[in-house]
């Protein structure tokens, strides 16, 4: 266990707790930058997809994990980002560097607009309201066919920045580095939010609305800001997803995408940036792992009946149930437990992480 001797308040304001932690994260970043030199284009594409999932996951994590507002409507905001990005590029001819941030802004605006009527909703009611948004978005895309291409879909143009092409197939490492850059910026912004009054006000709204108000937190405004930031980041992920997919239509952004996003952050671990990335790894590579195993079994036994079709969905469902029952803190929560065990060895107690029943709280006044 490393004891950090803090000599100034700035020690708590830094991005890293100590230099060794900084070293490991920079090493991780260096490895991530160097990946295209050791992986082929297919795998780099998959890692880029993982990063896109992670960006979307961070967006949702801010809302669900930190502000405590469940959302089943984030596919709609991915759609807003994806369509805004492509329409600005194809119809108005704006470059990616302009259309990409604007797609995030459009999604953020949509999120803030949703937060206005739903600011008074809590928990399951908010989930249902956002679920409706997700379903509406699907129909909306079809109805706005003149702009969105409706059922037949829309083609995402190639990304060109200062004459350099970032097509996923032609320049896979380029697209990957672009995604990595966006992901790193989002992580930095997220970390900055968490160490500032804004992040604390989100936590306040999550843990006790009544006492958040008693300390001067404006509930409606804080919820609107959290929705805007969350949806904005998810919109950015949607824009990247559009370029990754190349062509997309209303079926890309169904309610299942919303559920997958929510599942991802629950599996990864609610309330941590790590959780978004760990969940994204599971979401991206589990289908790959299943198909690799399936191919192996087919080769070995020469039959396709060993693993029935649709097993991915079943596997996802089983994993989600297992996590909720056995490890509600997600993969990251499990990692923290393992780390603590070794840090405190041999003094780690079994009850250290037992969830306690909270003391009685003031009857809610709403």
């Amino acid at each position, binding site marked *: 266990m490393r004891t950090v001797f803090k000599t100034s*308040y*700035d020690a*708590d*304001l830094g991005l890293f707790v100590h230099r060794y932690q900084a070293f490991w994260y920079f090493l991780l970043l260096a490895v991530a930058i160097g990946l295209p030199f050791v992986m082929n284009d297919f795998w780099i594409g998959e890692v880029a997809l993982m990063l896109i999932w992670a960006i979307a996951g961070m967006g949702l994590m801010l809302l669900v994990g930190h502000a405590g507002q469940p959302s089943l409507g984030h596919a709609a905001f991915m759609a807003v980002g994806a369509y805004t990005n492509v329409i600005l590029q194809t119809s108005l001819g704006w470059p990616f560097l302009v259309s990409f941030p604007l797609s995030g802004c459009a999604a953020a605006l949509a999120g803030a607009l949703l937060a206005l009527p739903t600011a008074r909703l809590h928990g399951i009611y908010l989930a249902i309201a956002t679920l409706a948004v997700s379903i509406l978005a699907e129909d909306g895309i079809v109805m706005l066919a003149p702009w969105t291409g409706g059922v037949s879909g829309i083609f995402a143009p190639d990304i060109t920045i200062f004459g350099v092409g970032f097509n996923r197939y032609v320049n896979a490492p380029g697209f990957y580095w672009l995604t990595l850059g966006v992901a790193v910026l989002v992580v930095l*912004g997220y970390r*900055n*939010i968490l*160490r*500032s*009054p*804004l*992040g*604390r*006000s989100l*936590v*306040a709204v*999550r*843990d*006790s609305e*009544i*006492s*958040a*108000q*008693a*300390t*001067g*937190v*404006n*509930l409606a405004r804080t919820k609107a*800001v959290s929705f805007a*930031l969350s949806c904005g980041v998810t919109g950015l992920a949607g824009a990247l997803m559009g370029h990754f997919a190349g062509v997309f239509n209303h079926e890309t952004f169904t309610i299942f995408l919303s559920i997958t996003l929510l599942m991802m952050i629950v599996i990864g671990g609610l*309330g941590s940036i790590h959780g978004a990335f760990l969940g994204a790894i599971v979401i991206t590579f589990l289908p790959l792992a299943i198909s690799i195993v399936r191919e192996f079994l087919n080769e070995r036994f020469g039959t396709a009946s060993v693993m029935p079709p649709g097993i991915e969905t079943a596997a996802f469902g089983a994993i989600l149930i297992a996590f909720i029952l056995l490890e509600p803190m997600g993969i990251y929560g499990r990692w923290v437990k393992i780390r603590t065990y070794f840090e405190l060895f041999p003094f780690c107690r079994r009850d250290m992480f037992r969830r*306690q029943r*909270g*003391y*009685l*709280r*003031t009857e809610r*006044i709403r």
Partner: protein
Amino acid sequence: MSLLELENVTISFGGLTAVEGASFAVNPGEVFALVGPNGAGKSTIFNLVSRYCNPSGGDIRFEGKSILGCAPHDIPRLGIARTFQNIELFEHATVLQNLLIGRHTHRRSNAISEILHLPGVRAEERRHRLAAEKVIDFLDLQPYRESLILGLPYGVRKVVELGRALAVEPKLLLLDEPASGLSADETDDVAFWIEDIRKVMGITVLMVEHDMGLVNSVSDRVLALADGKTLVIGTPQEVQTDPAVIEAYIGLGDDGAGE
């Protein structure tokens, strides 16, 4: 001029009149206690001042201005901080974070500068931290600075909640049963803290308390309530010997009460 003034405040929930025509004024620098049996309307008065509920009649004035047009989140900005009867802390945050959230009314930075972590944000964070550390020193919370609320015992949570209210740097502090559930030693600590809050920090205290020992030792004036009506205002001794108060607490002699 009195700091907080309630004038003929009435509130009813459905057919139940929780507070009826309450009128009293809290002077700057005093410790004012509300006492009364359960259901007398003490906490309801707190919730009225915190603007969690709207009175059906009357007026509440803070520093001479009516606060009935304020939203609950405007109240701490005016300089009124409160604690809750059953602790309402941010359970998945550390003690330090809880105290820092108490500094929210002193936030000057906006969301964009915070996302970019501009130098001004950092300078402000240092100031908030300094203020929070002063509260930690005052309440002896140093050992718990980095602990999550979830793992803390009840007594410490009670103190953290007092600390969060102090971090607001209020003019008026509303304490809803600051000694409930505390041991005799902890109650003594609370009594000392209330003395210091009044004398050293110059904060006026309005509190609800059942522990008459604490009320006697710290409060200047006491208001006794029963069934939503104000019975008597006076010094602790006057109130305790008032026949109406004795009747409200113990009842009249012939029904066998009076232990």
